[in-house]
């Protein structure tokens, strides 16, 4: 018993060293992972944000086919930078719905006119209520919603050109 106790500190310490080494040599991963992945989409029903697109409700995102849900705003510069990538995704066959955050219909119309309109439906989240329910902290963010209305992936920040194939892969995987 005494013998065991005598060597116990060394054994514990070696455990700590292994832990430290694993922490030190693990690739640094500072990305925040969403806790909403795998959760059902919060229920919402939003008015139309653009004059030529229908409004958006959460039920319309559970159609059996995976879809992209993109949050954006006319006042957001990275959202404009993201527009070509959304265009490319749509051309590749992705179904995209949008939520305009803290926005006004006239501004959204002007934004879509400038940057193109890849969205099937656009809801207006004037007070960020849905944005908060989605656990999203800023615009733009893009969610992959599987056919059953569950969140399969959350992309924080704008989608870069390199991200497009990854998004398409994930979209296919969410089938």
């Amino acid at each position, binding site marked *: 018993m005494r013998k065991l106790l005598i060597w116990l500190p*060394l054994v514990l*310490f070696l455990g700590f*060293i292994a832990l430290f080494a694993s*922490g*030190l040599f693990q690739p640094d991963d500072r990305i925040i992972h969403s806790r909403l992945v795998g959760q059902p989409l919060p229920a919402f029903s939003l008015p139309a944000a653009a004059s030529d697109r229908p409004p958006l409700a959460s039920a319309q995102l559970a159609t059996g086919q995976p879809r992209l849900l993109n949050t954006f705003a006319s006042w957001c510069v990275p959202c404009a930078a993201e527009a070509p990538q959304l265009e490319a995704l749509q051309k590749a066959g992705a179904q995209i719905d949008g939520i305009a955050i803290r926005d006004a219909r006239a501004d959204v119309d002007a934004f879509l006119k400038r940057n193109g309109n890849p969205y099937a439906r656009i809801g207006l989240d004037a007070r960020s209520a849905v944005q908060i329910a989605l656990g999203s902290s800023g615009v733009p963010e893009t969610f992959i919603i599987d056919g059953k209305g569950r969140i399969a992936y959350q992309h924080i920040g704008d989608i870069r050109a390199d991200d497009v194939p990854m998004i398409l892969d994930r979209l296919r995987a969410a089938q």
Partner: protein
Amino acid sequence: MIAETGLAALWLAAALALLQLILAFAGLKGGKPELLAAVRPAAVAQGVLTAIAFALLVTLFLRSDMSVLLVVTNSHSMKPWLYKFAGAWGNHEGSMLLWVTVMGMAGAAVALFERALRRDTHMATLGGQAAISLGFYAFLLFSSNPFARIDPAPADGQGLNPLLQDPGLAFHPPTLYLGYVGLSVAFSFAIGALLTRQVDAAFARAMRPWVLAAWVLLTLGITAGSYWAYYELGWGGWWFWDPVENASLMPWLAATALLHSVTVLATRDALRAWTIMLAVVAFSMSMVGTFLVRSGILTSVHAFAVDPTRGSFILALLALYIGGALALFGWRIGSVREGAPFELVSRETMLVVNNLLLTVILGLVLIGTLYPLMTEAFGHKVSVGAPYFDRIAGPIALALMVAMAAGPLTRWRKDRARLVGKRLLIPAAIALIVAISLSVFALGRIGILPFLGLVIALSVGVASLAPLWKRNLRRTPLFTYGMVIAHLGCAVSLAGMACDSAFTVEKLVAARPGDTIQTAGWTLHFRKIAPLAGDNWTALQADIDVSRGGGSVLIHPQSRFFASPPTTTSEAALLTRWNGQLYVVLGEEVEGGRWQLRVWWKPFVTLIWLGGVMIALGGAMALVGRERRGWLMKWRARKATEVAA
């Protein structure tokens, strides 16, 4: 030239450390005792050389020598001289140089002043100190050279992190380091004792003053750091359970336990293996803390040098030194005789309880600090915050306080539970009275931990004075006073913490000049806001008249902008009164010419740091008291032999 001289002094010190190590062990094991004569001079020379290297680095900073890389990255010629001075250790390389300087000077002090230790243990201790120093010299010279030049030299430096441009920086890190690294002496003592198998009361008496000195400085350093965070960060909090704060708390907890167990060993020759283990753990915690901070594997507000290469270097040092010490412990401690046994109801048992509780808190803080790392190893990400530490460590700390009240009232060897209970009657009565009056006046308004905190603080405060009860106060030894004051300091500090969390009043307003704000009995009249230029910053400064009944005082919270590097800091305005502090922070401008003002009234919050200072003062008194008694006894013995002759 200065930089090259500094570097040469460091190399020379490292060479001396190697020599000291070889001489000590060749002298002890190789049967060449004549080699031992050079060990002490080597240690002293090493201390002098590190001090020279450090003084030279400070000189480079004071002269703003922009041909030195470290000065360029951490200083600026426009900085006030105090921050040039303090900037020397406000960075990774400089603080590591401070580390080896403290280590070298501690080794020199052990060589010069240690007289009580058996000669072979003394030599083995110095050998141990040289062995640890050697690793840190290597770290400094191979991966963190503070004297590296930059060519071509830029016109000016990049400045010091404005958060660090505070007089506190001149005082807090050196004090903390003296304590933190001073514990290396206890570590080396343990190595020495294990090598020569001298684990007994005489050894403990020799080690005690070194532990006390390091512990006093560590206590002061932590207290100063806590106060610095309180007024500089502008959040109104005094402890954030940040990994770096925990890194200084963990050695302190281990050293506090060691301080008490070494007393048991010195007085009763018990707890031998345990005391040695604690001496190893205390400095190990200093090293682990440094590793956690410098490697960047934990995210912290203090992390100023995140570098995996340095991380691997410190990890290797950790594995070598702590692993080596623990292996030596396992190998040798079996051959150390078991210490003296003791009765269940005795001072010894109370001190064992103290040690166990401190160790449990240490373990919980360690687990809480490392938990994010552990879960990350299994692919999950979590962060552990203040609620965990408060809820887990709080109740145990309160239990520890109760044990602290009972300990000094229990006799060594053997006591009777009924008698101990009787001595605790008055404190228990006070606890009851406080509990009842708090329940009547503040029920439902304060949480359970602050409630218990106040009850325990007041009763333990009285109980800590009890050892002086019915004693001849003039004949009571200084170290007993030291213990009483340190224990009272714990109660005072606890009272401050409990008052702060129970009774703080916070108010956030948006006010324009001319407005009047009422909170917690104070009236604040916001007079104006105006720009102000300082040495290397500009600020917006608010003039606020505050009054509480009588005359008013003008206070000036500021929002400061530093040009290099561009940063904004908030300088809180603090108004200290006997019963608390008014804490005012100037925030950002909101629309319509109004400014955010955050006002706290914190009753008795200053007791937290007053208690910390009392704890350190008590430790210092115990140190002086013990040493003086040692001299007096020696002096009397000499007199007696002279008379006999």
